[in-house]
């Protein structure tokens, strides 16, 4: 079971609300900027995500979402 945090960096405006609401400090602001000149969040500690969905809920720009995926069984 893997957790995937998807970030559409071209939609992000770098407000940092997702980073502020995350209690597990999964996200951090990247040093890079997108096309419009905003710094976007990147995933730092994927394994400590609790899938609470707060970052997805508060994002005003529909730029981040969390999903859980079943791993394929090893042959």
């Amino acid at each position: 079971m893997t957790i995937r945090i998807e970030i559409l960096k071209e939609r992000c405006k770098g407000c940092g609300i997702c980073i502020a609401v995350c209690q597990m400090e999964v996200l951090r602001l990247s040093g890079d900027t997108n096309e419009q000149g905003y710094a976007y969040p990147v995933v730092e500690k994927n394994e400590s995500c609790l899938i609470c969905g707060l970052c997805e809920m508060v994002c005003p720009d529909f730029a981040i979402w969390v999903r859980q995926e079943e791993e394929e069984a090893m042959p």
Partner: protein
Amino acid sequence: MNRDRFHPDHPFLYADFFPTVWCAGCGIGTVVHSFIEALKASDITPRETGVVSGMGCSRKISECLKLPSFSVSDGRVVDFSVQYGLEHPTHQVVAFLNNADFLLTGAEDFLQLRNSGHRLTIIYINNFIFNTAGDDGFPMTPYRRKSFDGSADLPFNIPLLASSVGAEYIARWTPLRAGWIKNALMEAFQKKGTAVIEIISPCLVYDSESRRILDAAERMQFYDGRTVIQNFSPLNKLDLREGKKIVLGTFVDSAPGEDKR
């Protein structure tokens, strides 16, 4: 771009609207997201809705949603919503109002809702801002604080006003509590009458507390640190004034047919 890279709310939104026109840290985008989540969680057909918004920043709400949505002229939002609801009785009509639509030009339409009991969900996005150019206050300008320069009057008590108009469901939240906005909208969709949800949203451009421009996350937490949740607190204690915490919560939740006026 493969299919996995679509946001879960992608079917509800026009893709060419992004990046959105709202400022980074504005509360309107979160309200729109909560509205879509509430729509998905409740058993409403997306075709059987009506989203109405007026002018200003909240006008863009009806432009970004792939729902039956209308941008109407200034001050005719509640009037148009009532007419749309009368024409389509099965539709769930949601009106997004800003300060001007609610308390200045649209105030008489809102007062006309008294005793009529139309099925209508009103989301009032209150950011204390009306005038962007001059120095006159308006009914929601905080006491001795300024939309730009100066009001000596106390701001309106919106839950008390909504209760006197006969709203069946009244709540107040901030955008950082987006899950509560979603729950409030889901409860409001169940009502047969008017529901009023007030969202106290920060405006980054015109800063009403001090002239400092904080960054977006700090601004959200600034509002959130000055709030306290008290469900069903007395309606006459809910006015916003300096040195007093903003009370959030559900204030009126009446059963169908019950008269709480």
